[in-house]
């Protein structure tokens, strides 16, 4: 192939689409290559769409994007075997336009997003697996090679948006291969129910939706969380745990999800539904400490391929879109000023990231995974103690309240000791500041 592009974007997920769209909109000659049969065919997410990240790319996305429900209520449940202690936040302010978060079905959303990329003028070709980066004598990236006859394609810059497994980055030595301790394996099901049933069970009307985040006994001692999201006429339910934990405990994700679905607090919510879709995906949760080099001569890395996921807040697609946009904006500025996409010039991308919520949030939570990994009491003991405390306090059995309080405190002290409790409070504070 003799044709040359300004930029080649590898991958058609949220980060690749954000990058390709922004570049094409600015009038650059963009080629986007996707390994799957169609854009989105390899993509999996819960899924929540964070409006802000997309709005900065496509301001009027609400007019045409396939959205399921806007989120008006967030529930956080700390589970024990037969119970949960929870907090809910529901607000009519979330029920006012412009909405802040939406549930989406990625298969539909990704098709829409890719359509926008193509309308903006990028050339999108699927079933093109990039197997290597092309470099010149100086080692600058000058294009990619795909797994097809006559497969060398040239460009001034390459954006790697090929996801958590990023074959290109790994084989090109730009990144380590994924480590089991840095990725979560998440599984989800789409359970279909009549619209009225979804709305009745979650106290909803119109296009409003609910998000439930789950933690505690459901992860069976592993570092991980579960979720349940409401779509128009379906529920997305899933759970993700660190791959190293699953390996150590020899747990299969399917069984883990089945047991979570059977929990007495969850089973009635999904009862009678029909599972029509089952998907699994790796999520890079290594956070700040696991970030690889993010740019070099002629290349930039965005989204999951670089590990841009905020595991604590379950944010990923917004980081993907934002990093994709910032990478694109960096290149646009360089090209407009007639500058080369050299590593020195692309350092601007890192500066933009540092300046954004992406790096600030990742830095804030840089220790959380380590803390949870080493301090398993946060996953097993505390959810159990909290549930027991609630049970003791809410059972009316002739025992006076003060002695109930003493009993609860004794239970905490017995399990964690006074120093342990103070230490845990400090650890949690350290890990999240």
């Amino acid at each position, binding site marked *: 192939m003799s044709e040359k592009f300004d930029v080649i974007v590898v991958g058609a997920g949220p980060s690749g689409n954000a990058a390709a769209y922004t570049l094409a909109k600015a009038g650059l000659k963009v080629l986007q290559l996707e390994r799957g049969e169609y854009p989105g065919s390899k993509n999996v997410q819960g899924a929540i769409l964070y409006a802000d990240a997309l709005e900065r790319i496509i301001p009027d996305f609400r007019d045409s994007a396939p959205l399921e429900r806007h989120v008006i209520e967030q529930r956080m449940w700390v589970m024990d075997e037969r119970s949960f202690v929870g907090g809910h936040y529901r607000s009519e302010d979330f029920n006012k336009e412009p909405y802040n978060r939406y549930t989406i079905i990625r298969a539909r959303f990704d098709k829409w997003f890719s359509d926008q990329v193509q309308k903006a003028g990028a*050339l*999108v*070709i699927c*079933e*093109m697996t990039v197997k290597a980066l092309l470099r010149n004598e100086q080692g600058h990236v000058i294009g990619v090679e*795909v797994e*097809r*006859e006559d497969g060398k*394609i040239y460009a001034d810059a390459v954006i790697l948006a090929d996801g958590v497994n990023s074959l290109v980055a790994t084989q090109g030595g730009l990144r380590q291969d994924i480590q089991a301790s840095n990725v979560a394996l998440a599984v989800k099901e789409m359970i279909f129910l009549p619209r009225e049933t979804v709305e009745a069970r979650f106290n909803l009307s119109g296009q409003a939706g609910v998000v439930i985040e789950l933690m505690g006994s459901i992860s069976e001692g592993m570092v991980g969380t579960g979720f349940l999201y409401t779509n128009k006429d379906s529920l997305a339910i899933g759970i993700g745990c660190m791959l190293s934990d699953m390996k150590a405990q020899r747990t299969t994700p399917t069984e883990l999800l089945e047991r979570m679905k059977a929990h007495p607090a969850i089973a009635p919510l999904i009862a009678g539904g029909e599972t029509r*879709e089952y998907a699994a995906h790796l999520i890079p949760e290594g956070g700040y400490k696991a970030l690889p080099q993010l740019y070099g001569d002629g290349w930039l890395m965005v989204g999951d391929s670089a590990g841009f996921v905020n595991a604590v807040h379950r944010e990923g697609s917004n980081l993907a879109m934002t990093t994709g946009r910032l990478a694109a904006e960096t290149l646009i500025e360089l090209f407009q000023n007639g500058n080369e996409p050299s590593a020195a010039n692309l350092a601007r991308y890192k500066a933009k990231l540092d300046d954004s919520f992406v790096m600030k949030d990742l830095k804030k939570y840089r220790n959380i995974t380590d803390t949870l990994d080493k301090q398993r009491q946060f996953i097993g003991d505390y959810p159990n103690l909290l549930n027991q405390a609630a049970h003791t306090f809410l059972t009316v059995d002739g025992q006076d309240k003060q002695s109930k309080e003493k009993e609860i405190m004794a239970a905490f002290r017995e399990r964690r000791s006074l120093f342990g409790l103070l230490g845990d409070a400090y650890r949690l504070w350290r890990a999240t500041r």
Partner: protein
Amino acid sequence: MHIVVCIKQVPDSTHIRVHPVTNTIMRQGVPAIINPYDLFAIEEALRLKDRLGCTVTVITMGPPQAEPALRKALSLGCDDAVLVTDKIFSGADTLATSYVLASAIRMLHKETPVDIVFTGKQTIDGDTAQVGPGIAKRLDMELLTYVSRISQVDLATRRIIVERRAEGGVQVLETRLPALITMLEGSNELRFASTPNMFRAARATVRLWDRTSAGIEDIKLVGLKGSPTVVSRVFGPTPRAEKAKQIPFDPAAPDAAAAALLEQILAESPRVQEELAHRRQPGVRD
């Protein structure tokens, strides 16, 4: 030489489910693919192109969503693609479909005379194998079905020799062009598209033909109106609920278990007892 390949976009049968009540195919969310049998037709046309240097046009009748199937065919090396699409075509059976396709091929023939039309042996959703022969009849072309090999195409004498899989053997058939060939599965192996062809397909314009462009003369012969086929009832095979019977087994007394098993069998089918009585031979323990 000009070759036309007729393809159909079908739901991927490995993903479809049947509605438990209506017994109809639930297509929602099922990915669409090129009818697998049609891939052998595309590949055979492309092999003739490689050998003889002809033009290959791929054509389908379907909704606008069928465009990716045509683009896929272009990426493999087909030169031109036509999507015959019009609201009035919906609900067509094989009779109406062959009418529309034959009419469209006639229009293609006006642009460049058509020598061979390829179709797959049948589709995986309808399984009728009627559209190919229907087109041949309407266009008055020679019909070669279940072809496993094209042995020879002589453009000077306009003769073609093919091998056809028939019951009990292979027929070697010779006929004149123009001919319609329905390709048998397994007759060739589909090629992997090259990078330049992937680019060409991504950028190509698929021609959209409505009833006028396709040269439809009588709109009463298309779509639901032109389809005499009536699906009176759809039903799945009745599941046979035969439950296994359990016979308690005591390892200390295998004979008792065997006797109980035999008793069960004979109770279920008395005829077995009669037959066994006839076959009983000396030396065989009762």
